[in-house]
């Protein structure tokens, strides 16, 4: 039987809170419910294993930074940079999140039902079988996928049109997929639009279905919708800038 | 290169200055005749609630008004007068020693744990840092520094120190290396409670000075004893260290000794070196320091300078040479020479 441990975070500083979470995992908890979270940073920071951590409240900055394995589900919003430099595991945010979501994420998934701020997916990168996935249900802001070096960044724009500009600035790996058409003028230098092939659709379909399941959405209309795929114009966006002495 | 001497009576029995004059002059081979000084605790019983400020005026007629005005801003001058002196043929007088008996207004340092001493500290720093022809040479209650350029006997006779009676006396016989003419240069150095005499020269003056100045102290004389006085005041009064730990911070054990200590002691000594690394003093020194409750002596950890300790009844003596102790107390009962890292701490009975 799954072992559940509940922690009341009301007024608790993040260091003792993280110590309680680590102790719960050491005690064999499969599921940890943290109530009354209000801005505590670093929840799930550097955690290993496969526990599920439910955060009720507003998660503070660097949620699940360096995390390697567990699943963090936030019933509420998250601040700056959830999934920062994450290795594996999953972050599910039922609300919205701040800037630099999934910064430098190398593996695992970050699902945000609402909107994300500026520079979402910045410098996401992939390595061998590690391929990070960031899915945004709502909208994303400017500099989406800046410096992106790998992985998949999917924006479903469920709540209206996305206004991001300078998309894929400096992108040199991975792909950005956005539901609907994205005007060429919103792309940054170094990024280019490609049609979404059937192969591409087959690749993203399981991601869309998983996202839809997590947020109780009807998956199939999303799987079959029109998408714009944005990829690097070159794997060496800066190579042409330099000459040697 | 200097000679130092300290004596304390544990039961506050008074000693007049004649014995100390004799003791200090026994060490004239260590001096150069260009500076000597004495400090005594317990000399102003009639003004014991006032801070006695001994001030050297370059020209009393020009410089005194500014000091009066500054003091009056910070409290009340109960009494002031020229320090009685008696001209000596071998002493070239170049300033006027004056004394104030001053009560600082504690309400002007709100929130301080020791408001009067904070005010006195600020006043001393302020007067000594500005070019106003005035230098405060001592500033404690019931204590006074008497110093000048010259041989110990001449300085003692100039101030007529045999007329003063104290229960702790420190004295310094200077071997001058710079500014032999300045009367403020010889030890003792004093700031309210604490007085310091040093034999030696620290090689860490720059590091120690920068450390102490970051706490608001202002080193205006350039002497070791000034920095040492401020360090002791900071560590004991402001940081609440007991004197033995303060001395340990200033002259700590070597890391290899610390490595061999039991764990709790090791941690404490490591913490002292961590916190007070910039206060650590290197180079040759023996220091004798006093406040109204105690007299302490300690050396650098390499034991480069001598320290002789004598005991006789209620009297504790610390000196550069045994002869000085025996000059004052021919019947001294014990003579020891403590090693580096073993401070001598004598306390006055409560």
């Amino acid at each position, binding site marked *: 039987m799954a072992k559940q441990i509940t922690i009341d975070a009301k007024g608790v500083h993040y260091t003792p809170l993280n110590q309680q979470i680590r102790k719960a995992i050491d005690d064999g908890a499969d599921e940890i419910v943290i109530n009354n979270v209000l801005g505590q940073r670093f929840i799930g920071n550097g955690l290993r294993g496969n526990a599920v951590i439910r955060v009720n409240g507003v998660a503070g900055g660097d949620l699940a930074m360096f995390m*390697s394995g567990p699943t963090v589900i936030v019933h509420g919003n998250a601040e700056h940079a959830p999934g920062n430099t994450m290795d594996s595991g999953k972050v599910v945010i039922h609300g919205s999140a701040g800037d630099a979501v999934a910064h430098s994420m190398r593996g695992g998934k970050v699902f945000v039902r609402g909107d994300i701020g500026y*520079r979402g997916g910045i410098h996401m*990168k992939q390595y*061998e079988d590690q391929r990070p996935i960031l899915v945004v249900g709502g909208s994303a802001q400017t500099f989406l996928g800046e410096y992106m*070096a790998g992985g998949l960044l999917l924006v479903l724009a469920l709540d209206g049109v996305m206004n991001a500009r300078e998309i894929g600035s400096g992108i040199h790996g991975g792909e950005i997929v956005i539901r609907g058409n994205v005007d060429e003028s919103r792309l940054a230098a170094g990024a280019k639009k490609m049609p979404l092939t059937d192969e591409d659709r087959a690749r993203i379909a399981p991601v869309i279905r998983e996202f839809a399941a997590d947020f109780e959405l009807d998956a199939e209309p999303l799987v079959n919708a029109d998408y714009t795929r944005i990829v690097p114009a070159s794997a060496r966006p800066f190579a042409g800038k330099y000459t*040697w002495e | 290169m200097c000679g130092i001497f300290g004596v304390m009576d544990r039961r506050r029995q008074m000693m007049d200055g004649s014995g100390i004059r004799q003791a200090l002059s026994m060490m004239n081979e260590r001096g150069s005749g260009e500076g000597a000084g004495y400090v005594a605790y317990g000399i102003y019983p009639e003004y014991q609630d006032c801070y006695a400020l001994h001030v050297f005026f370059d020209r009393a007629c020009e410089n005194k008004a500014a000091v009066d005005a500054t003091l009056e801003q910070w409290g009340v001058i109960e009494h002031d007068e020229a320090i009685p002196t008696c001209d000596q043929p071998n002493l070239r007088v170049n300033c006027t020693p004056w004394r104030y008996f001053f009560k600082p207004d504690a309400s002007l340092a709100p929130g301080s744990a020791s408001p009067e001493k904070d005010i006195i500290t600020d006043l001393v720093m302020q007067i000594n840092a500005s070019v106003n022809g005035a230098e405060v040479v001592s500033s404690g209650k019931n204590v006074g520094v008497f110093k000048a350029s010259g041989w110990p006997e001449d300085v003692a006779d100039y101030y007529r120190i045999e007329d003063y009676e104290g229960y702790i006396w420190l004295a310094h016989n200077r071997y001058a290396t710079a500014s032999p003419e300045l009367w403020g240069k010889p030890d003792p150095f004093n700031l309210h409670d604490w007085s310091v005499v040093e034999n030696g020269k620290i090689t860490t003056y720059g590091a120690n000075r920068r450390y102490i100045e970051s706490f608001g102290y202002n080193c205006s004389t350039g002497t070791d004893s000034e920095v040492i006085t401020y360090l002791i005041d900071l560590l004991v009064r402001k940081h609440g260290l007991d004197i033995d730990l303060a001395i340990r911070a200033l002259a700590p054990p070597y890391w290899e000794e610390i490595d061999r200590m039991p764990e709790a002691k090791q941690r404490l000594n490591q913490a002292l070196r961590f916190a007070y690394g910039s206060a650590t003093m290197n180079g040759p020194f023996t220091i004798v320091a006093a406040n109204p409750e105690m007299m302490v002596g300690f050396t650098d950890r390499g034991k480069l300078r001598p320290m002789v300790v004598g005991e006789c009844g209620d009297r504790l003596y610390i000196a550069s040479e045994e002869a000085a102790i025996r000059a004052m107390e021919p019947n001294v009962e014990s003579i020891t020479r403590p090693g580096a890292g073993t401070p001598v701490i004598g306390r006055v009975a409560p």
Partner: protein
Amino acid sequence: MNSNIGSMPLRYRITIDREQCMECGRCVENCSYGVFRWDGDRILINSRNCTACHRCLTYCPRDAIMLEEHPCDYRSHPVWTRQVRESIYNQARTGKIILAGMGSVADLPIIFDHLMLDACQVTTPPTDPLREPVELRTYLGKKPSKLDIVRKPDGDIELSTKLTPNLMLETPIMLGHMSYGAISLNAQLAMARAAKETGTYMGTGEGGLHTDLYPYQDRMIVQIASGRFGVNVDYLERGAAIELKLGQGAKPGIGGHLPGEKVSAHVSRTRMIPEGSDAISPAPHHDVYGIEDLPQLVNSVKEATGWKKPVFAKIAAVNNNAENVAAIARSGVDAVAIDGFRGGTGAAPRVFRDHVGIPIEVAIATADKELRKQGLRNEVSLIACGSIRESADVAKAIALGADAVYIGTAALVAMGCRVCGNCYQGVCSWGIATQRPNLVARLDPDVASKQVANLIHAWTLEITELMGAAGINSIESLRGNRDRLRGYMLDEGLLEILDVKSVGA
């Protein structure tokens, strides 16, 4: 693209004394730049490829090879120097930013060389380090500013102040951050072994930690740079300390760039990026856009590693250095490494390398002064880096306020590097700045580690002697002790900034 500029005059000319030469071919084998080749039984020379790496000279058994710099120069001109003219030719031809290897070549006065150390004569005695202890042991990390001590009724003393983790160094010399990728694994291995032998630490650089270095992980300072290459919780836990690279002296304000061709299979594994892909380190950390974000990153790293390791931050020395350092000192960082404008690099834009930043001497002095002024000196240790060339530089840096130094180029030179400045070509003939297996194999890590350890040991001895002569028997008494320095032919303004008196004063 065609140009009418043509070729530049030779930078170096290689000649072979044919009478001495015995055609053994060691020069052909050793030169990785393609200067020598066989033409039948004769060795031909293409001087244009020469970098002055000296590998051929070193290995010629007959001393038959001669190298001449600038055999044919331009008309000499004090303003239109050779370098200025050739940069113009280069950019006229390419229209690009010029990249260059190693540290600044700007011919500016070196402040260290104008600072003289003190010694004792008669007013204080020198200490003889052969007979009496002179302590170089250095702790890097936060120190308490005051202690809470409880004296119990039985007279026992108890310390209630909790000390935060510090790194303990036997000597104030550390090996600076040079990444795997920029240098070879054998070079990193050599330094790791030297660090272990001499009781100090080395930086990993931003290229992750190769598995072969795991045995030395307790001597490694693992670096997190803006690219986050090779950074995961395992990496952080392996390090003895963690360093956030916020800037680099050779190229302040800009990021870094390891070209795909240097990302070999092994390099790709430690950096955790695909083989052959560019490794781009952005200029800022994208989770630090304001100073208040820095404590977030610092605390995040500390949370992830259970508050067991000191966290360092490295910055380039720039105009508002003192302000930067004071800001970092409030962020929870335990030590700040300041990299002066002469700091080394595998490759940097020439215009940055030679024109941006301030000297390390000034940066350390102003940082120490500002931290003391703000009551923050115990919050951080200061590490000076960027052109520390000899033991005297170490002593002077410490007297100006540093706790320790990082050496980079000096350690490479100890392994054979001739400072030819062609690291970017990736064919370092000494096996240092290359990933080519045949070249890497030239550097025997056992031999090279002994050389690096010898250097650290020799400098340590010299520093001990310098301190003893100054009558100082513990390194913390030298730290910030500017009274033991004097400026020789430095202007008054600079002396005031350094808080050092002139010689004679």
